[in-house]
């Protein structure tokens, strides 16, 4: 039971995701584009229920990379380096999915595939920074130096997360701001659907992170044992 909890987390995430999909298409109403007469239905808004949870989960994973980086520098333990690059891998998976779903929403909503507005630009930079993280890792052979360099890089790259999050709140942008200090700009059934989707993506992400982490640790131990037997 204790050993299998990440697997249960992934399963719960899958079940919650199914509930969120049902909520998205059968419970949450189709919104209308504001200030349109006659009102124009906004079906593309349905992308929001998974696009935002996936994006926020990517931010959580980037935060794990940065925290693991700090722990590498402070505690100098190899397992934090493993956690750092594994969380970066899951973060990139989620970030790529955020970009794809975002671009599809942009095309449906704004009629263009891409626009250089603050959120899209800062998020794109974040994705490029994470690409750089893996390039850095593959270019340094010494494991200790690789751990140190990527820890520092991961911490610096994380600085783009709050910039990206706050960009549309501080700079005038066409990107919608759904959650502000005034609360959530949506009806209760829409908010509940969104929160279920959020719980689904977070539990799915954490489950994947822990399973992937254990796989990496087991792989390293296996290599060590093989060398021991071989020598």
């Amino acid at each position: 039971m204790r050993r299998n909890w990440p697997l249960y987390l992934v399963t719960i995430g899958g079940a919650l995701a199914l509930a969120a999909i049902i909520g998205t298409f059968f419970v949450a109403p189709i919104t209308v584009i504001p200030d349109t007469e006659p009102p124009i239905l906004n079906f593309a808004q349905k992308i929001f229920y998974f696009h935002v949870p996936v994006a926020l989960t990517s931010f959580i994973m980037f935060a794990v990379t940065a925290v693991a980086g700090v722990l590498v520098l402070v505690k100098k333990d190899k397992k934090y380096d493993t956690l750092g690059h594994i969380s970066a891998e899951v973060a990139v998976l989620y970030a790529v999915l955020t970009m794809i779903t975002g671009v599809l929403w942009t095309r449906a909503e704004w009629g263009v595939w891409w626009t250089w507005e603050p959120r899209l630009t800062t998020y794109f930079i974040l994705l490029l920074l994470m690409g750089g993280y893996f390039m850095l890792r593959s270019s340094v052979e010494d494991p200790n130096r690789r751990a140190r360099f990527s820890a520092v890089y991961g911490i610096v790259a994380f600085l783009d997360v709050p910039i990206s999050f706050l960009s549309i709140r501080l700079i005038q942008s066409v990107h919608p701001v759904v959650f502000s200090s005034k609360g959530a700009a949506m009806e209760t059934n829409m908010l509940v659907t969104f929160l279920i989707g959020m719980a689904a993506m977070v539990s799915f992400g954490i489950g994947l992170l822990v399973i992937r982490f254990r796989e990496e640790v087991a792989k390293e131990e296996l290599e060590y044992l093989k060398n021991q037997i071989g020598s």
Partner: protein
Amino acid sequence: MTEIERVVDASRYVAAAYSILWVALVAYVVSLGSRVSRLQRELALLAEVVQRRGSEK
């Protein structure tokens, strides 16, 4: 563009977004699952080798 045409047009992008999202996540889980089971097989093989060596001594 009529209201129906607008919804049909948007639904193509919604369908694409949901399909890509779930195909990618499921593919990642399947690939992770197959790697973990391969690792378990290797570990079992290693345990067998260790056990055999132990009994030879």
